[in-house]
């Protein structure tokens, strides 16, 4: 290579580099038109400001709501019900961006590493170990929930699930959004039984050998299912203050591990492998390859029947001692460019009005405290037709087991991969 060529190549690379860094710098200083004043405001945004003033600041802004986008019904609800209410009442535009929570955290972490003070994410649908990690790594804005008028008005601040998310103190860094609870699903026309505890479940799997399985951990649903089995075998109380140490956890769940290994013999493909996602397990159930599936959406049977996916004989059941349930939340990103609008939007989402539409359209258990509702609001919740083949709300809430602390969950998942699969 002669020197002239070399110099040309070098200058090409240098120009390319300049372009990249140039773009980067441009990105950080460019602002949406008309946003000049806003930056200063949200940079030093103070959640203690009077809420009326926050409402004023929020006007005309757009909030980006990032969260799992795999549920078409929820996306539709956000776009067609929530967004118009926010626009009409508060002049806020809601943009819904579907993204897996792992990617959201990776994006936030990347923005933090790059030192970007004006990020792209405002609101995040989050809970559990992801909240724990995001808060620990200073990716979230807060505390803010006590500044929301509707928090005081509608929410029971003494509720364990409002104070703790998977055993980890929330401290005002996320607002409740909806409640979920693990349920089991099978078809009474195919299997008459609805196992009420782990022993009966073992018998069930023996009877329908090779036709039961669950999603491989760390799938969200699979992980919750295994935690439900663990709770049924060794109880749930001991985990609340357990040290997040692999040996300690392993010792505590050993009887459950033994049970799971025994169970393997009767599972699909003898428990040598498990489907990677809950979507696959659902498909296999719909196709008749499995006789049972499980869901973290308590009313997914009713929704499935309305869509014609499930036949009329499909029903929901849970263990006598209950199944794990959790609340999911909305947090605000630390580098959110529109914190005021995000707070206003969240305040609206925790209102009885929007929670009622969520209950009606998605059958997501509401997070508002029933006792705090007016008679009119109570009637609205009471009159929702829950659909066929589901369990009533009070039975679910009655048999609701708390989730393990966020830092124990990944340890259980790791142990499962080492001690259960194919063993």
């Amino acid at each position, binding site marked *: 290579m002669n020197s002239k060529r070399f110099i040309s*190549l070098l200058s090409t690379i240098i120009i390319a580099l300049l*372009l990249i860094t140039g773009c980067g710098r441009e990105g950080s200083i460019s602002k949406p038109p008309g946003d000049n004043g806003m930056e200063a405001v949200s940079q030093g945004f103070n959640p203690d400001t009077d809420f009326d003033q926050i409402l004023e600041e929020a006007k005309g802004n757009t909030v980006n709501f990032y969260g799992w986008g795999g549920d078409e019904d929820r996306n539709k609800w956000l776009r067609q019900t929530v967004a118009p209410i926010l626009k009409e009442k508060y002049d806020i535009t809601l943009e819904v961006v579907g993204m897996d929570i792992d990617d959201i955290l990776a994006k936030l972490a990347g923005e933090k590493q790059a030192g970007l003070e004006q990020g792209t994410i405002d609101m995040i649908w989050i809970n559990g170990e992801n909240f724990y990690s995001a808060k620990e790594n200073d990716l979230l804005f807060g505390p803010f929930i006590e500044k929301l008028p509707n928090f005081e008005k509608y929410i029971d601040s003494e509720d364990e699930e409002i104070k703790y998310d998977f055993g980890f103190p929330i401290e005002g860094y996320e607002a409740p959004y909806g409640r979920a609870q693990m349920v089991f699903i099978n078809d009474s026309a195919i299997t008459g039984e609805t196992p009420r505890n782990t022993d009966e479940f073992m018998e069930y799997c023996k009877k329908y050998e090779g036709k039961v399985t669950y999603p491989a951990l760390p799938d969200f649903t699979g992980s919750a299912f295994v935690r439900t089995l663990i709770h049924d075998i060794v109880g749930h109380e001991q985990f609340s203050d357990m040290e997040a140490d692999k040996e300690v956890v392993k010792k505590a769940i050993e009887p459950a591990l033994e049970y799971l290994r025994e169970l393997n013999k009767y599972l699909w493909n003898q428990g040598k492998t498990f489907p990677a996602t809950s979507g696959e397990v659902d498909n296999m159930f719909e196709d008749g390859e499995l006789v049972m599936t499980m869901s973290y959406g308590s009313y997914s049977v009713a929704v499935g029947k309305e869509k014609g996916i499930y036949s009329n004989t499909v029903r929901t059941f849970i263990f006598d001692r209950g199944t794990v349930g959790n609340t999911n939340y909305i947090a605000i990103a630390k580098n959110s460019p529109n914190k005021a609008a995000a707070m206003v939007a969240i305040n609206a989402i925790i209102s009885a009005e929007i929670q009622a539409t969520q209950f009606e359209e998605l059958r997501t258990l509401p997070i508002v405290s029933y006792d705090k509702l007016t008679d009119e609001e109570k009637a609205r919740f009471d009159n929702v037709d829950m659909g066929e083949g589901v369990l009533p709300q009070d039975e679910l809430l009655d048999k609701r087991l708390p989730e393990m602390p966020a830092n124990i969950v990944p340890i259980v998942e790791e142990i499962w991969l080492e001690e259960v699969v*194919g063993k």
Partner: protein
Amino acid sequence: MNKKTPYILIMPIVLLGVIFIFGVVNGIIQSFGYIPAFNLVNVTLSYYKEILSDPTFLDSLKVSLQISVISSVLAAILGIILTAALVYTGHTEGRVLQVIKLAIIIPHTIVALFSISILSQNGLLARVFYRSGLINTQRGFPLLLYTKNNLGIILGYIWKEVPFVAYFSLALMSGINNTLGEASENLGASKLKTFLYIILPLSMPAIRKAFLIILTFSFGAYDLPFLLGATVPKALPVQAHIEYIHPNLRHRPYTMAINGLILAVTWAMAGIYYLVTKKGRVKGDIHEEF
């Protein structure tokens, strides 16, 4: 055409290249435990050490090597046969080529979907066999996907890569066939002999390159092993992703160390390829074309 034109034309690729290299370097730095944003500032080799002594990693490495070597060798052989068939039947351009291109365009995730709907115990083949009475229950159909021997993944890669090898080596092989191949046949060599002694050896550079590409790709790709693989052991890229989505962000260096090792293995493959081909290279021969 101005003298500067070529440099302007390669600008986009240089741009992308620089971004890519920046990402790789960043990942490698993180693999040594340096991520100030998460309060990790001590540069250490301990993540690599831990991973290299972790049986899960070693199993994953084995799985990935097994998948990539088996699928690439088979794909190369079948690809050569396909190319030869195309060359000898005169289908070196036109519609057949479009079909081959189509197979290259189809993403791996779609291939996984095909595989599931055709090869699973609930798939098309199992149903056909069951209906026609060849097996008693659909479960009697052999389990091809999600197994420890990774048959499903290997089949998926072969499906994708055979057309790639063919497309990659077609032009060269057909060129040789038209020139040296014909000369050889004119001089009295049989078709088979011409193929084995003239065409195949001269086409090897393209085939070898195609082989290297599919070998390194299938070693580092994520989609097929994730969708069609066994729960344990997982292929390396899937294992890396599992570590990546670990909720504890301070776990990140483990991911990057796995990625670093994937990179190292890939480089080793390329290095071996370089050494092997260097020996046999003759200056100025037809190889240089590719």
